[in-house]
């Protein structure tokens, strides 16, 4: 694909970032501001859940992005192992902490939503357990990639881990269908369309887009830094 190969060159990627990041930062900040106002002020309380439905506007997007982030890690891992894509290792290093943070946010907001709504901070059902596993898989990726003096070895070992652990993502997604869980079943991506009322659906979709922008911003920013960091390390070795 021409567009991917265009960005595969680290120098081109850095120029891309230099052009895109400032604008992206502004757009993301605006999206966050609008999203917060919409979620906290404009959106009406749910007739069943009351005001706590507002937690949904941060819990669902962060959990979705957390899972998507791991899919990205797996794709990057595959690119690294199969095509030796030069940027894949650096982007994976940049992405893992971001994904871990989104997962932590998903866990915390889920817990804070669960306590008033379903009476419990935590339950060991399939969805929550597999989502917690996602967090540990991220931590493992972060630790493994940095466990070797030879950064290449760490990157490639982490790539294998990312591919093996990818099976967890469909498990998280379908766990609410396969098992009786306390966590509610899918209400957006289902046959027959979303089951949420538009006044709650639209701010949710906006927040999903906002979190996606935030994710992209963080990954681009951190990948840019990783490129610089590698150059620094190479210079230190040569010195």
């Amino acid at each position, binding site marked *: 694909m021409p567009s991917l190969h265009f960005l595969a060159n680290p120098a081109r990627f850095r120029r891309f970032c230099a052009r895109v990041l400032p604008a992206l930062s502004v757009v993301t900040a605006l999206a966050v501001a609008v999203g917060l106002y919409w979620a906290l002020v404009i959106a009406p309380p749910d007739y069943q859940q009351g005001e706590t439905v507002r937690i949904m506007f941060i819990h669902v997007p962060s959990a979705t992005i957390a899972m998507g982030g791991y899919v990205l890690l797996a794709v990057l891992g595959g690119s690294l192992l199969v095509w030796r894509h030069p940027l894949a290792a650096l982007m994976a290093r940049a992405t893992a902490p971001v994904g871990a943070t989104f997962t932590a946010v998903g866990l915390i907001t889920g817990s804070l939503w669960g306590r008033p709504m379903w009476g419990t901070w935590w339950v060991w059902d399939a969805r929550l357990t597999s989502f917690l596993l996602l967090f540990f898989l991220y931590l493992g990726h972060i630790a493994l990639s940095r466990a070797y003096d030879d950064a290449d070895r760490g990157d490639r070992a982490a790539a294998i881990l990312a591919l093996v652990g990818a099976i967890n993502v469909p498990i998280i997604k379908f766990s609410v269908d396969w098992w009786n869980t306390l966590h509610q079943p899918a209400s957006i991506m289902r046959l027959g369309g979303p089951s949420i009322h538009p006044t709650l659906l639209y701010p949710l979709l906006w927040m999903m887009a906002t979190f996606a922008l935030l994710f992209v911003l963080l990954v681009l920013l951190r990948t840019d*830094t990783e490129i610089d960091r590698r150059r620094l390390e190479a210079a230190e070795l040569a010195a």
Partner: protein
Amino acid sequence: MNYAVFIWSAYGATAVALGGLVLLSFVARRRVRRELSARGLDRPREQRAGTSR
């Protein structure tokens, strides 16, 4: 039950976590860039002709 506590805690934790990550990421980038320019490595190679490698 006072739902506000849960809602504000959730938004607060998210703001701290994600906002903190954004902040740290910008700071780290600035730090690495400063380090690179201190070594004179931030200019493209052609312009570095004559400086020690």
